[in-house]
């Protein structure tokens, strides 16, 4: 699965994107965050303010309880501040 990070989530994780083999047992956005946060301290720090993290699957906003459902790309980022 392609994983992307933006803004301060990207800075804390320390990378823009990566391709990861997500275990079959991880089936929801929330599960994916749990799994990522356990990787190391950078990830743990990035996902510490868990409720503020926004998520997109294949370029569409989703809630944390959304199923991954075969999505090819997941992105994690803070609340948007464009415009």
């Amino acid at each position, binding site marked *: 699965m392609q994983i992307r990070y933006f803004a301060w989530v*990207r800075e804390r994780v320390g990378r823009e994107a990566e391709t990861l083999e997500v275990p079959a047992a991880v089936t929801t956005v929330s599960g994916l965050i749990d799994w990522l946060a356990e990787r190391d301290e950078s990830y743990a720090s990035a996902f510490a303010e868990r409720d503020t993290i926004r998520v997109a699957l294949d370029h569409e906003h989703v809630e944390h309880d959304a199923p991954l459902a075969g999505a090819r790309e997941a992105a994690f*980022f*803070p609340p*948007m*501040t*464009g415009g």
Partner: protein
Amino acid sequence: MTGQAPLSPQTTPKPDQERDPALPPVVVRIQAEDFDPAAEIEKLVAGKANIGAVVTFTGLCRDEAGRLAALELEHYPGMAEEEIGRIAQEACRRWPLDGILAIHRHGRIAPGGNIVLVVAASRHRRAAFEAAEFLMDYLKTRAPFWKKEHLKSGGAGEWVDARESDNADADRWTR
């Protein structure tokens, strides 16, 4: 997760859906280069003599009382275009528009520089005003852009915090 403004998920089209041919042209561009509001408006209304109202919003980089050297705008390529496109399509379904346009810049922008341009054209004044404001409100809360400040003092830039009032502005359209 709280504060995510809903955008009528029932009616938001999937990217692979066809546009309704009765809907007006939607122009969405994400670019580093500056834009020319007058030229963009001219293109949007050219040849359509039944447009009575054009509302334009230009968002500019403020200098924050002289504190700011520049804003750096990060975005999510691909999703940024798609998400703004979805919001613009929703505006076309809600109001009788003859054209709608959104251009959002990314990269480094100095105070006084253009950040975003939204134009809505309609036969009717209220439709043009409301569609432009709707598009801006949702763009602020849903389009994947993030601003980082670069200070004149040279201090490490801070990411701009999302404002709760922006969510409240977007929520107005769901009432």
